[in-house]
């Protein structure tokens, strides 16, 4: 690891974590929109919102599971450094609520992990009407959780991230 500084190494990890989160956010948002407000056939050409929610949700399921797990692994790895180099200064600066929201972010990530197998199963049986409601709300739960975790991570990076 002599060719790369320690700071650069962890910065690259944080960027990869962020990029994976962006991909996950996009996939889950498309899917959540598709289940909450399914597109209907229109006479004219579809607009942006209609196109956004017209995605075939089932095709996203495996990618969402893989992305959630990869984002989780990278986040968990970075967390070792966060605990010492980020959290301690945040506490010293008195940003208690910011730290509290980070604690919630880690809770969301782990509980979301527990939903992945059944989420995947529901989406692999998209024609099964008995799963329709559960599929919808499990997907929305994951999408809301992902947005929450993403925004908390973004704010934390602003508080004490790159260059601090």
């Amino acid at each position: 690891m002599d060719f790369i500084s320690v700071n650069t190494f962890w910065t690259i990890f944080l960027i990869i974590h962020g990029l994976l989160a962006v991909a996950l956010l996009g996939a889950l948002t498309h899917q959540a929109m598709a289940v909450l407000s399914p597109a209907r056939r229109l006479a004219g050409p579809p607009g942006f919102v209609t196109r956004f929610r017209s995605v075939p949700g089932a095709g996203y399921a495996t990618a969402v599971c893989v992305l959630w797990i990869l984002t989780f692994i990278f986040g968990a790895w970075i967390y070792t450094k966060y605990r010492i180099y980020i959290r301690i200064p945040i506490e010293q600066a008195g940003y208690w609520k910011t730290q509290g929201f980070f604690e919630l972010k880690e809770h969301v990530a782990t509980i979301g992990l527990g939903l992945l197998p059944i989420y995947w199963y529901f989406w692999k049986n998209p024609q099964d009407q008995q799963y329709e409601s559960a599929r919808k709300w499990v997907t929305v739960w994951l999408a809301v959780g992902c947005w929450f975790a993403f925004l908390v991570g973004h704010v934390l990076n602003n508080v004490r991230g790159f260059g601090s």
Partner: protein
Amino acid sequence: MTNTTTNTATQSAAAQRSSLAVSAKFKAFAIGFAIAMPIMYVVCDLFSLPLFTFHPATNRFGWGWEAGRSGEGPAMYWYGWTALCLVVCTLVGIIAAMLPQKVATKVPLWLLWLLPTLAFIPLVWSLMPFWTKG
């Protein structure tokens, strides 16, 4: 002719689905896993039950709960909670998969999203020091 084409397409689509996606045992496993996770996670968090403690400053692991040692930085429990949850929930899932198929069909599916949502009531409450300081 149309019916034959439709049937062939349906059979082809079914064949393309992985065996896990049509497995009743996997469905039971996944339901057991998903229901156990928020319950187990809340228990681990509220009762401080990590499988192990990680000390990031020294890269040291210790079984169960350990306090941070003087001069060795803070202790981390989230890895231990997550690991214990994964182990226990996997076991619950395996047991659920071994139960008769009709048991899984009786589980209300709304529990799958309601329990993770309700889990945040005690989890937010457990973070009260963070909300009330400063």
